[in-house]
């Protein structure tokens, strides 16, 4: 049961057609997640993290387009569904907590009404009393009082609102929860409470979680696996321990060594150079202009994401198999 694959993404590509040209925001993404697994998706802003989440939800809006690839969640290829079928799949198979979700609660509707709405949309015939009871129980699951059901969003603190959003997300027990920076506006104590709530709830319903963000500290505390993105491509996927102790990709290495810790007080090590524009990607590996290990082959050939030792995946010519 625990080893069941709940998400399998293959060769996913998303492009945005802008006046200035075509920007490939996500290219050749492959990803597999098992039930109960927690994956962290990290990268600089503009590296394609949120695009990947939106593509999984099929919420890419024009001028963007999913150009190819599959997103298989719990045995269903989401990219092949009709729009109505996709509506039904959202929340019941795959749930999404967007950035700043807590500000999306309707200020003039009681929390309960918004939760009941979510269930009604999927199960129009569910009896009222049963639906309400389910909502109240779900509120308890996320450490809120049952009485929050009757409250309005303005009566709740930021952390409480974020937990209401989590409650709505798990109402229909989805197989995959995608959380895009769920705690970026919260202070550290509240952040920890919210993350612990997600962890507990996720375990309870056995869902896989994708946590998107650039806070590596949060990743170290929360996820099992880390996937690093750079300029629209996945460049490394490793277990969290290996990622932090022995990152393989030069970008991942630079990212890890730029992190502040208690030991290296006062050492600031940024990553030299700037992230490239998606409209004018350098040829070959997109990271080569900033890479300290650059080789000739990096300028001409895009390195594919390949299996390395102990199930790690990395896209870098440094690890090309000797031929």
């Amino acid at each position, binding site marked *: 049961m625990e080893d069941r694959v709940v998400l399998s993404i293959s060769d996913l590509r998303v492009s945005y057609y802008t006046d200035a040209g075509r920007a490939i925001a996500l290219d050749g993404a492959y990803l597999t997640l098992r039930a109960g697994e927690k994956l962290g998706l990290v990268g600089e802003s503009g590296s394609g993290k949120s695009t990947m989440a939106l593509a999984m939800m099929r919420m890419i809006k024009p001028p963007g387009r999913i150009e190819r690839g599959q997103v298989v969640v719990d045995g269903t290829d989401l990219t092949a569904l009709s729009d109505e079928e996709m509506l039904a799949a959202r929340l019941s198979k795959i749930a999404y907590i967007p950035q700043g979700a807590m500000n999306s609660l309707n200020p003039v509707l009681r929390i309960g009404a918004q939760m009941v709405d979510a269930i009604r949309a999927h199960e129009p015939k569910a009896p009222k009393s049963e639906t309400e009871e389910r909502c109240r129980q779900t509120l308890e699951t996320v450490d809120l009082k049952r009485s929050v059901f009757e409250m309005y969003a303005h009566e709740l603190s930021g952390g409480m609102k974020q937990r209401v959003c989590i409650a709505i997300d798990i109402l229909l027990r989805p197989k995959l929860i995608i959380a895009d920076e769920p705690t970026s506006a919260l202070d550290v*104590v509240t952040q920890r409470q919210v993350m612990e709530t997600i962890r507990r709830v996720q375990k309870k319903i056995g869902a896989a979680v994708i946590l998107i963000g650039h806070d590596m500290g949060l990743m170290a505390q929360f996820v099992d696996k880390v996937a690093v993105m750079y300029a629209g491509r996945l460049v490394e996927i490793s277990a969290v321990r290996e990622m932090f102790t022995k990152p393989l990709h030069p970008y991942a290495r630079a990212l*890890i060594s730029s992190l*502040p810790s208690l030991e290296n007080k006062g050492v600031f090590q940024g990553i030299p150079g700037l992230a490239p524009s998606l409209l004018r990607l350098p040829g070959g590996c997109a990271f080569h202009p900033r890479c300290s290990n650059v080789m000739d082959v990096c300028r001409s050939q895009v390195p594919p994401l390949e299996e390395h030792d102990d199930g790690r995946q990395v896209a870098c010519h440094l690890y090309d198999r000797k031929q």
Partner: protein
Amino acid sequence: MGDLLELRNVTKIYHRGLISRASTVALNDVSLTLKEEEPTILTVAGESGSGKTTLAMLLLGFIPPTSGRILYKGQDISRLKGDDKVTFRREVQAVFQDPFAVFNPFYTVDHLLSVPLRRFRLSRSRSDARDRMVEALTAVGLHPDDVLGRFPHQLSGGQRQRINVARALVLKPRLLVADEPVSMVDASLRASILETLRGLQKDHGVSILYITHDLTTAYHIARSIIVLYRGSVMEAGDTDAVITNPQHPYTQLLIDSIPWPDIERRWGETELKMAEGEQADHNPGCKFYARCPHAMDKCRVAPPLFRVAEHQAASCYLHEKNPRIDSERLSDLLPV
């Protein structure tokens, strides 16, 4: 030389409406001093609602304190006039949180940097103004050719935030108030912006008030720290001491909850008391009473500051065996 900036028992209360009696104490009797001859970086840390942005607004002179005085070079900033006011406006500069919101999209970077030079009549000529802009941009680690003549939308978040620092820098300030300057930029750019700020203090003698909720960056950049909770000082002192050996239960909770990017340092086991259903602001006792695991009866009366180490003080009865220290004298124990 005297004090650059002095806050004397500053309190700020926000009232809600004309009829409602409800009011919020945003800052409660805070005193601190920054010395003119010793440029330093002082962190003011706290979660949202702790009063840290109110503090920034007060000492920039945007809002008046409800009681207490704010002195800049010995003069009350609310009574500054004429040349003194211009000098204050020039010497005290700010960098705000959101590098995307503070730019006017219609103006180029040149315009943005040259307006303050012209307003304060600092440049003798066009070429002099340009030299100053180039100097300031280089100081923040930008290549002038990369940014001059560009519009804000052509720049990245990190570049914009460094331009904000450069804009403050062209005026040769004495004090920089940085309100969450790195919370909205990527981790990889944070390091370079913090390095820029530290360079300002070291090489240009600018004192920096670094306001943040992120104790990791505070630890790396600041010499001393003041931890606020709902407007009151909970703990203050040497950054190393406070962060590696916190004495106040609130600071302990805060530091225990930092997600360190370190696989060996897991989130602590401290039990989390929910912040919900908090008592009214008018509670005269310790502000942390409702959430404190060590809450005692006497905590219903606000605790004074106790000096727990040479460079560390905590406002908590757990440390009442230590000598008391007046809140006005708090700055004396902060290292510079």
